């Protein structure tokens, strides 16, 4: 018993704080009715709503939870893939070729500090409130992180490693693919993860302004219709799906970026 306590001491402490908050929450809502359910529904109510939305309930926003998740994922992954497919080669190219850097970097530097959300009005104007405009917004969110990190990663290539490559007779192309890109790979993956984070954040914001379904749309509708339980279910789902996506990428990174550890 003692060893069990020892072993899980820290986890137990964390679990206690969590349980404590849930308990107080339950007490002030359903038990003592200190807070109006219009402001803050009880944990059991939220759990019920979650179950209802998960098992096919479409009230109040018109879609089930899974439909909303799928709708959001389609947009997020669509914009993300385009952003990454353009951003990574752009970053690598600008870091590797001086001429290309001179050509592309000034333009990129102008776009770079513009937050992805600032593109929302223009995107709605150009593409309406359908799939395209949201993908466009996500694109900018993902594209910037992917480019910046790939660029920095390539720039970190060690001079000695390039010398080694050259003295072994590597061509410029081989230096890029066999020396610089492997060096940059951990940074490129960091960029992919940051890009996914930005994409997910931008998605929710974009859906709150221009959408007919999706998690962002769901919580926005719930606010208008006074359903705080649905808002909280939506928030937790957004957080959870974001976490899952990040974990997936981390797994991929572990698998493909082996022994990134530098020495000396």
């Amino acid at each position, binding site marked *: 018993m003692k060893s069990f306590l020892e072993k899980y001491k820290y986890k137990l402490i964390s679990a206690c704080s969590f349980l404590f908050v849930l308990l107080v929450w339950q007490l002030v809502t359903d038990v003592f009715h200190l807070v109006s359910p219009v402001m803050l529904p009880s944990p059991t109510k939220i759990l019920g709503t979650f179950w209802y939305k998960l098992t096919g309930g479409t009230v109040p926003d018109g879609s089930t939870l899974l439909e909303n998740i799928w709708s959001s994922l389609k947009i997020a992954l669509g914009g993300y893939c385009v952003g990454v497919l353009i951003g990574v080669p752009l970053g690598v190219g600008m870091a590797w070729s001086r001429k290309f850097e001179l050509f592309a970097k000034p333009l990129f530097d102008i776009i770079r500090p513009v937050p992805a959300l600032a593109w929302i009005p223009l995107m709605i104007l150009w593409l309406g409130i359908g799939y395209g405009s949201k993908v466009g917004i996500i694109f900018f969110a993902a594209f910037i992180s992917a480019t910046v990190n790939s660029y920095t990663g390539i720039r970190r290539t060690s001079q000695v490693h390039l010398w080694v490559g050259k003295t072994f007779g590597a061509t410029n192309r081989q230096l890029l693919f066999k020396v610089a890109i492997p060096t940059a790979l951990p940074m490129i993956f960091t960029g992919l993860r940051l890009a996914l984070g930005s994409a997910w954040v931008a998605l929710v914001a974009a859906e709150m302004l221009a959408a007919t379904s999706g998690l962002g749309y769901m919580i926005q509708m719930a606010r208008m219709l006074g359903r705080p339980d649905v808002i909280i279910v939506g928030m937790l789902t957004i957080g959870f799906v974001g976490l899952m996506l990040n974990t997936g990428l981390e797994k991929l990174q572990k698998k493909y970026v*082996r022994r990134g550890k530098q020495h000396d």
Partner: protein
Amino acid sequence: MERAEGNVGSPAAVLECRNVGRSFDSYDGGGKNEVLRGMDFEVHENEFLVLFGAGQCGKTTLLNILAGLDMPTEGQVLTRGKKVTGPAPERGMVYQKTSLFPWMTVEDNVGFGPKVQHMPENERQARIKKYLELVGLTGFEKNYPSQLSGGMRQRVGIARAYANQPDIMLMDEPFGHLDAQTRYMMEEELQRIWQKEKRTVIFVTNNIEEALFLADRIILLTNCPTHIKEEYIINMPHPRDYVDPEFLRLRQLITDNMDLTL
């Protein structure tokens, strides 16, 4: 295996360094920082030449020029009579610090040269096997550099240079970062490897014992701007002994002649 003493083989030079000078623009803008001046020497087939000089006197700068990674501001470098205009696989390099690719296994590091030159895979594998065996690292093929000790990493570096079968090997203080014990061991190891598979070597060091232990010939360098102060032909048989009277005599002779002004 006994080998002939001193300068062996044909006197035809494998590499000639002709009146090479190198200046950099000064950091403070104005003048020039002259690092090398009038470096003039050659190295012969299968000769083990040691360039011996104090720290920061331009040894790395010189080797980079010999490798073709940097261009001299004066003079020229010739390999077998042809002017060096850039890096080439005939001139292999072993670096001061570990320069292994940390994302590649030992075997991929050693097979890197043959790979970029599109050698057929079975031939490449044979090369890897042969040279890992030569440096005594058979069994470590699948390890990553971060899993090896400093001495083992430098052995991989040596195997990698050998695997390309270069005409000449340039070694820039390859043991400078090792502890004294490992360093002695690696000097013996390198001597053994070199006896087994002879190459023309230019080896740079700031350690007189290392120089005397390995060299057929030692070129003593001055401080900046670096030029040649003296040349010594070392005729002692291998393996050499650090406390042999002749070893100690030469050690005294050479250190007395060094520039000690820093």
